[in-house]
């Protein structure tokens, strides 16, 4: 025997069953109008790019894979990699110093960040470049005691070393704050749980804290990397043949300014696009466990769409 009222059937006054009526989707005319306006503007921009001969697309094509340009791209990549890897190594050490319980370490880390964030990168680079004026020789040995090796500063720190050093030290200050923010974002209970389980300190950091901190660190760090790719262009003041310096050299010779600026633009965009794609997958890796189900990657979405089409 069933209990409770009989199921109610929604009915209109004219006795027609609601379930059998046709559904008319809501219309949004303004969305269509906005779409139309933007499409026209896009077409105009595209047209202006293609039809104006001053853009010099033919010359762009000639120089895009020119050997000197490729070597310049390589140098730009090398400077970026050195700046980021060394910068984040310095930054991680600084962040841990800042979070330590030793007063001198905290204040040294704080001071470092303060100085290197205060001085413009271009100024720092010039300092490193001219280090030989400040200290003619660098010696390695016992502090305040005898020295074992002495090198002329000029021989040790060439333009490339000065540039990487400057970029890394500058980047280190920013990286320190990024890593510190990441570590602070991890819930205190995580450290407590690890401590209660007797997990050793170093392992707490590597296994418990940093992987969770990476969720906060990666997006900001990616920003920094992308910023640095283009930021490396300031080393042109040291006459290092990276991408921006190289296109200037070429257009000063042949006068095709716009075309060569475009070459540089395209290369910076290519590098940034690759990095952005990498960022997506790195973020996804560190997101494990953070959501019940991770959203599909673009590739998975594409595959699903193709499968849907066929089916």
């Amino acid at each position: 025997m069933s209990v409770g009222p009989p199921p109610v059937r929604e009915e209109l006054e004219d006795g027609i069953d609601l379930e059998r009526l046709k559904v008319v989707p809501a219309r949004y005319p303004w969305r269509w109008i906005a779409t139309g306006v933007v499409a026209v503007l896009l077409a105009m921009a595209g047209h202006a790019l293609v039809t104006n001969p001053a853009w010099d697309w033919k010359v762009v094509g000639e120089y895009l894979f020119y050997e000197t340009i490729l070597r310049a791209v390589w140098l730009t990549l090398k400077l970026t990699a050195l700046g980021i890897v060394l910068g984040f190594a310095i930054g991680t050490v600084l962040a841990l110093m800042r979070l330590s319980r030793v007063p001198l370490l905290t204040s040294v880390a704080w001071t470092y960040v303060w100085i290197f964030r205060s001085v413009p990168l271009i100024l720092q680079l010039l300092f490193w470049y001219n280090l030989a004026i400040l200290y003619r020789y660098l010696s390695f040995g016992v502090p305040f005691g005898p020295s074992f090796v002495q090198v002329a500063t000029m021989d040790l720190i060439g333009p490339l070393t000065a540039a990487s050093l400057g970029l890394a030290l500058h980047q280190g200050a920013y990286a320190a704050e990024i890593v510190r923010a990441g570590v602070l974002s991890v819930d205190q209970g995580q450290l407590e749980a690890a401590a209660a389980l007797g997990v050793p300190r170093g392992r707490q950091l590597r296994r418990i804290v940093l992987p969770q901190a990476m969720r906060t660190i990666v997006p900001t760090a990616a920003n920094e990397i992308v910023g640095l790719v283009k930021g490396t262009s300031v080393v042109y003041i040291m006459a290092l043949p990276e991408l921006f310096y190289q296109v200037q050299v070429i257009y000063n010779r042949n006068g095709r300014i716009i075309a060569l600026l475009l070459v540089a633009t395209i290369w910076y965009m290519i590098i940034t696009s690759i990095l952005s794609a990498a960022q997506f997958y790195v973020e996804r890796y560190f997101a494990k466990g953070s959501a019940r189900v991770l959203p599909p990657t673009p590739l998975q979405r594409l595959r699903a769409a193709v499968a849907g089409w066929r089916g």
Partner: protein
Amino acid sequence: MSAAMVEVRGVHKSFGALHVLRGIDLRVRPGEVTVVLGPSGSGKSTLLRSINHLERVDRGYVTVDGQLMGYRRAGNKLHELKERQILKQRTQIGFVFQNFNLFPHLTALENVAEAPISAQRRPRAEAHAEAEALLRRVGLQDKTRAYPRQLSGGQQQRVAIARALALRPKVVLFDEPTSALDPELVGEVLDTMRDLARNGTTMIVVTHEIGFAREVADTVVFMDAGRVVEQGPPSVVLDRPQHERTRAFLSKVL
């Protein structure tokens, strides 16, 4: 009378001007279940956290299985232990948190196997096999590969209990293990704890579950304002409390 597994003697603890523990004495014998009751702010959690030295006490001392927690005695002096040694002492004490504090980026199995591998240096394969057995024991054998966020609150707390047991501790401390759970999920966690008690695990449980205290506890301790007001078997403390304060508290929660 057998030796105490956990002994708390004259423990005081303040946070700034707030005097949270005002001289606590407690003895827990091996295999015994002690339930600590009391209003919030009475110092129950601080007491538990002092036992495994997550909080350093200001006065008094704690021993676990005869070992002084956090200090080493040499003649007339107490030497503070280094963090590394304190971490080692803690491996003898399991701790279950109110908010589980599972590691969200590790699977259930990895959560349970982490401490045996890193704190006790047990071989990986052995630790994993034992973690699997522990998860089976708390009824989660088919959730070993799940991440904490893919589990319900009750399941997460059961993983946390398995994680606490993985170190083969001499005593397990529970800090309000069911307070963060939906009423429906409380039962499965209490069942797991009941099962541990039956198997002779020494436990100290801070909880508001009077029913659990009545059924499982050997000793019930009632705390208020940083002091132990009354302690004894549940039949006495819960049914015939001697103190007015205990009676007032029980009349509200029952």
